[in-house]
């Protein structure tokens, strides 16, 4: 390849990458995310600076990995951590200003005994359909016609007015009636329009051809920062408290709409001060550790023993056995978990049925834990079996022969020769398996949903892992609270990180065997 072609290819690739960044930036600009556009621009400059010049050779290799690291590892961590300092969750998704306009808009009620009008939306003749002031041409049930404007309601002379059988005006001299599409395009202006009828009420449109007289019962006093609801006697006054509008007279009365705000470290202090949470957290953490350790050890031991057995040259038909053993791994884990859930059913399940037992597997704390470990053993051992088979086959035969010649028996050979060599290859995978099982959400969720729940409390289940616990807090719990769940996630992250450090030190030690 000549130098020129290489250069052309290089610049084409750079141009493609920059075009990609530009496209992402325009999409972000459409979404109105200024910060992200700036970041995308900086990434673009970075790509140009690293690949467009001859300097920074190491960076040429590192940049793609670094970008992915930031996008998929660092950003989620930073995002979660920042979320954990807010009260973000159901009922706290919008801003305070939005709650005020929303509460007032939703307090509008139809004025009792007021008529329903047939309505057409129009502009004055000559005015533009897209920008001109809107007027409502209204027909009362008795057939009298009116013009409604922000200024008020005026009678519309019947001369020249044409109506449909239902009373909707289709033609009026001096006005241009808008089409459905034109009206829809001005939905915003239309929703802001209320024809005042005195007494604080107004005529508002419903859809394209009907209008009603409504009146909001809530008013906002910006100076005092209070909402007043006059539909109750006496009127209820609401003040901002804990990111919601709470009645000054009765603190149990509040509007459902709350707003998002920063709460500092209160989510974290709740984790460590709430008695149920603290006790539960410790309980869940212990079971989580036990679950991960026992899962790894049991799957590894079973997988390794079977691998050793099938590694024996004297065994016939190994290919068939091996394929059969991989089956549990080949089936989708979700289906397997659900099948096991059915088998563990106390009354109708296969396990109690064939063994003649009456164990309440999924309804008792120890039964549920045992059921989970058994299912995970079934799901996990084929993987360990594959890995160990591969590793065993790579251990040279002469090492074993040397051991036999030195007079070591089978057990001694296994312990002192095969195991250390096997662990070098498998050790890092055991750590990966541990980390996976530590967060094995799917299994727990499909098998027990974290239950059974004992001690009259449904926030902490006896087979919960930290991850299923955080999920329940965030999504399916009583009041979905993303901010609090983010705080729990941050704590889990720190715990897992702390545990991983010694584990990786340990694998380094294993590598020194070679």
């Amino acid at each position, binding site marked *: 390849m000549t130098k020129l072609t290489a250069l052309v290819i290089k610049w084409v690739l750079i141009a493609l990458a920059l075009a990609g960044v530009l496209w992402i930036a325009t*999409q972000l600009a459409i*979404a109105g995310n200024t910060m992200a556009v700036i970041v995308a621009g900086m990434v673009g400059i970075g790509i140009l600076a690293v690949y467009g010049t001859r300097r920074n050779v190491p960076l040429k290799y590192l940049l793609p990995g670094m970008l992915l690291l930031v996008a998929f590892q660092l950003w*989620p961590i930073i995002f979660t951590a920042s979320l954990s300092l807010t009260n973000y969750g*159901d*009922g706290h*998704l*919008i801003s305070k200003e*939005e709650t005020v306009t*929303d509460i007032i*808009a*939703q307090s*509008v009620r139809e004025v009792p005994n007021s008529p*329903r009008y047939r309505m057409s939306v129009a502009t004055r003749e000559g005015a533009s359909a897209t920008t001109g002031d809107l007027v409502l041409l209204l027909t009362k049930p008795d057939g009298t016609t009116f013009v409604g404007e922000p200024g008020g309601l005026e009678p519309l002379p019947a001369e020249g007015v044409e109506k449909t059988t239902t009373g909707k005006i289709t033609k009026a001299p001096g006005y241009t009636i808008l*089409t*459905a*599409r034109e009206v*829809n395009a*001005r*939905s915003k202006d*239309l*929703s802001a329009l209320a024809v005042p009828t005195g007494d604080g009420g107004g005529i508002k449109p*419903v*859809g*394209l*051809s009907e209008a*009603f007289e409504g009146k909001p019962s809530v008013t906002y006093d910006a100076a005092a920062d209070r909402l007043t609801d006059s539909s109750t006697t006496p009127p209820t006054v609401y003040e901002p408290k804990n990111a919601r509008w709470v009645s000054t007279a009765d603190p149990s009365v509040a509007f*459902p*709409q709350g707003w998002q705000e920063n709460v500092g470290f209160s989510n974290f202090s709740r984790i460590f001060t709430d008695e149920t949470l603290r006790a539960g957290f410790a309980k869940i953490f212990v079971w989580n550790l036990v679950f991960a350790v026992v899962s790894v050890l049991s799957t590894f031991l079973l997988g390794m023993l079977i691998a050793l057995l099938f590694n024996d040259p004297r065994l016939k038909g190994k290919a068939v056995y091996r394929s059969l053993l991989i089956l549990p791994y080949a089936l989708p884990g979700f289906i397997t978990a*659900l099948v096991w859930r*059915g088998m563990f*059913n106390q*009354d*109708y399940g296969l396990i109690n049925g064939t063994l003649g037992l009456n164990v309440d597997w*999924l*309804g008792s704390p120890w039964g549920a834990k045992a059921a989970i470990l058994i299912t995970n053993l079934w799901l996990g051992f084929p*993987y360990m079996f*594959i*890995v160990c088979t*591969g590793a065993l*086959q*790579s251990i040279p035969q002469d090492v074993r022969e040397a051991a036999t010649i030195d007079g070591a028996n089978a057990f001694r050979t296994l312990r002192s020769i095969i195991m250390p060599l096997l662990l070098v*290859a498998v050790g890092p*995978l055991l750590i*990966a398996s541990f980390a*996976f099982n530590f*967060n094995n*959400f799917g299994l727990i*969720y499909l098998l*027990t949903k974290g*239950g*059974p*729940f004992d001690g*009259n*409390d449904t926030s902490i289940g006896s087979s919960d892992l930290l*991850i299923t616990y955080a999920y329940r807090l965030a999504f*399916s719990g*009583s*009041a*979905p609270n993303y901010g609090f*769940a983010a705080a729990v996630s941050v704590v889990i992250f720190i715990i897992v990180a702390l545990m991983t450090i010694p584990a990786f030190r340990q694998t380094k030690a294993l590598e020194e065997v070679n």
Partner: protein
Amino acid sequence: MHKRAFGAVAVTGVAALALSACGGSEPAAPSNPTPGTSSAATTTGEPETPTGTAAPVRDANVDLVIWTDPDRSKPVQKYADEFAAENGVTVKVQISTDTRAQFKDATKVGKGPDVIVGAHDWLGELVQNSTVAPINLSADVASKFLPNAIAATKFNGQAYGVPYAVENIGLMYNKDLVPNPPKTMDELVATGEKLVKEGKAKQVLSQFVSKTGNAYFAYPYLSAFPDGGIFAVKDNGDYDPNKLLVNSPGSIKGGEVLAALGKKKILSTNVDDTNQDALFDTKAAPFMISGPWSVAKAKDAGVNYGIAPLPSLTGGGAMKPFLGVQMFYVSSKAKNATLAQEFVTNYIPRKEVQLALFEVGKRPPALKEAYDEVAASDPDVKAWYEAGADGLPMPNIPAMNSVWGPFGQATADIISGKSDPKTRLDAAAKEIAANIAKG
């Protein structure tokens, strides 16, 4: 070399699994910010199906966007087309696999639809997050609907939707074994136990309980007694989150019935969603407490089923089920608010629309006129409606989210005999109250 490559593959696999498992705990990502490719007039034809389970992408070039579940998409599409032709606009019906969550996420980033089809008990959450707009039906249109259906569209006295169907649970019985449905629970138990003794059935009743409990199915046992239930009702018809009835004397009586039935193994925590229908359809149980969704399966299995109101309990009255109401909502952030309001207030109350929507789920229509027409020809619909005649709409206040878990678990613990009714319901009430205070 071989070994190392193999290991690398395995590690990647584990990492991918770990990633997908962790994915569950992250807040669901808002829908892809790519705007739909322009398709000016897609008003006719098939509703747009999503790829996978991701939220549909809102089409910016359409005058009205409706999100619905796959089942209802066909009839909604048909009348959306009619609406489009009549008003000279374009309408797009998109299928959403999880409307409740996808609507919340998409609306938050300004990419939500104008109209959604959903259940009435989402309402509290939607109002709380300020994502639905009030709907002002005129009094004479509202009076054409079943009163309970209209009541269910209201929150804090304001109406937020137009209903099209009601659903509730009732008693399904096998006519081959039981010619006449029992009127009381005692009668049901006696009949069932006799059949078991004669070897014609394996168990008396199939009811969804499960290890974690099911509040929806357990509630009628409490509501059979005066002041038994979950929340007291305020003067304006709303449920009052500050007045819990979970451990009222009436509810405790209901709890005692659950305990007694659990002791006799008539109710069991080993019956759940996986085997409830199978027990009835294989004729192992002559009675099942379930809803309209179980009918198709029973029909396929060739069971000669009948539908009756829930039986009454000794010392109390009839078991009153929760009513669920299906309705059309308009988004408060709708880009096409006017057309959305027009479609929902002017099209959904039409008889032919209600009849078309009935065909897909076979749930009693919410419009009286449509219900009368179907009930005359379909005895099942009439039976379901009558089974729910004195039911109350399921609470739609946000506080209900705090009830499902603790209350369901409490009933499961009472049925399994782990705890006695009074202690357990007191504890549940305490937990629910604490959760409501936190929310």
